[in-house]
């Protein structure tokens, strides 16, 4: 296939995901504006970090001055799954120069990673395919999140519309997307109780650490009876 065909395949694969991300980007920008971030700051965060889940978590934790350690810690935890994702996709990238590999992986996200994994089952993943898929997706996120911040700043206090609760609702919905049965149920219960207790007793940002660690411990314990089974492919 010529590079043009490869690029066309990338565009064909990414557009539904890019479309689905439009309202999410607008919502993110509006919520960030509600925490006092300017549209340009929202743009900067999106262009530098480009990680939806971690960015939503960051805005939920945001305060003035920014709690840098808590923000970086929460981002590292939420994005830790990328280590397994990049380990899985890296050997499937064909014909990438070193610069293309390190540049291309900068914007690896759940959606374009999953599409590239799917592509790799039937075709080599070429630079033309990868960048045709990644560039519009990134541009979409930058445009919608910045636009959301501009609109959000005009709307004023998000609490008036219950928009402050949108985070909580969104994160519950995202948790459902990671659902893997009983182990996840124990994870969620332990993380929720530990986080709420730590929030009451020690205050932010300790609730994130306490909740995350208790959730992981619960998963470890609940998965005890899986220990004899063979490892499945590295997922999500």
């Amino acid at each position, binding site marked *: 296939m010529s590079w043009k065909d490869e690029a066309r395949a990338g565009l064909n694969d990414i557009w539904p995901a890019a479309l689905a991300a439009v309202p999410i980007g607008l919502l993110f920008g509006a919520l960030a504006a509600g925490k006092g971030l300017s549209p340009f*700051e929202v743009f900067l965060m999106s262009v530098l970090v480009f990680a939806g889940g971690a960015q939503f978590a960051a805005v939920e934790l945001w305060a003035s001055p920014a709690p840098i350690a808590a923000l970086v810690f929460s981002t590292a935890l939420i994005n830790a799954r990328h280590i397994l994702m990049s380990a899985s996709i890296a050997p499937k990238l064909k014909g990438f120069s070193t610069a293309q590999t390190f540049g291309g992986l900068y914007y690896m996200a759940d959606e374009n990673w999953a599409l590239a994994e799917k592509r790799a089952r039937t075709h080599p993943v070429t630079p033309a395919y990868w960048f045709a898929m990644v560039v519009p997706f990134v541009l979409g996120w930058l445009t919608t999140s910045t636009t959301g911040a501009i609109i959000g700043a005009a709307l004023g206090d998000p609490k008036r519309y219950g928009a402050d609760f949108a985070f909580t609702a969104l994160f519950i*919905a995202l948790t459902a997307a990671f659902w893997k049965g009983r182990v996840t149920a124990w994870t969620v219960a332990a993380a929720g109780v530990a986080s709420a207790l730590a929030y009451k007793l020690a205050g932010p940002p300790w609730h994130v650490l306490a909740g995350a660690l208790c959730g992981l411990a619960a998963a470890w314990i609940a998965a005890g009876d899986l220990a004899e089974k063979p490892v499945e492919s590295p997922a999500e």
Partner: protein
Amino acid sequence: MTVDPINLAAFLGMALVTYFTRIAGLALVGRLNLSARAQAAFDAIPPAVLIAVIAPSALATGWPETVAALVCGLAATRLPLLGVVAVGVATVVVLRMVA
């Protein structure tokens, strides 16, 4: 176009750790051999962190938020992402009027 320097430092820190996770896999290719338990704990990271972040808002704010969070949990079993958000926000707005 002003940017708070502390905010910029936070963005850069977040970007750095995120990029690290995205290229760390290059060093692991062919060497990754997690036990089933370690895999389960690894898979549990996203939900554990997501719930840890929102638990104070869902469980330690007031009963309207707690009830709305439960409604979201039910909605999440059948609605797409934005549907859950719409249901959750509508629920909390109505319940706060009652509270």
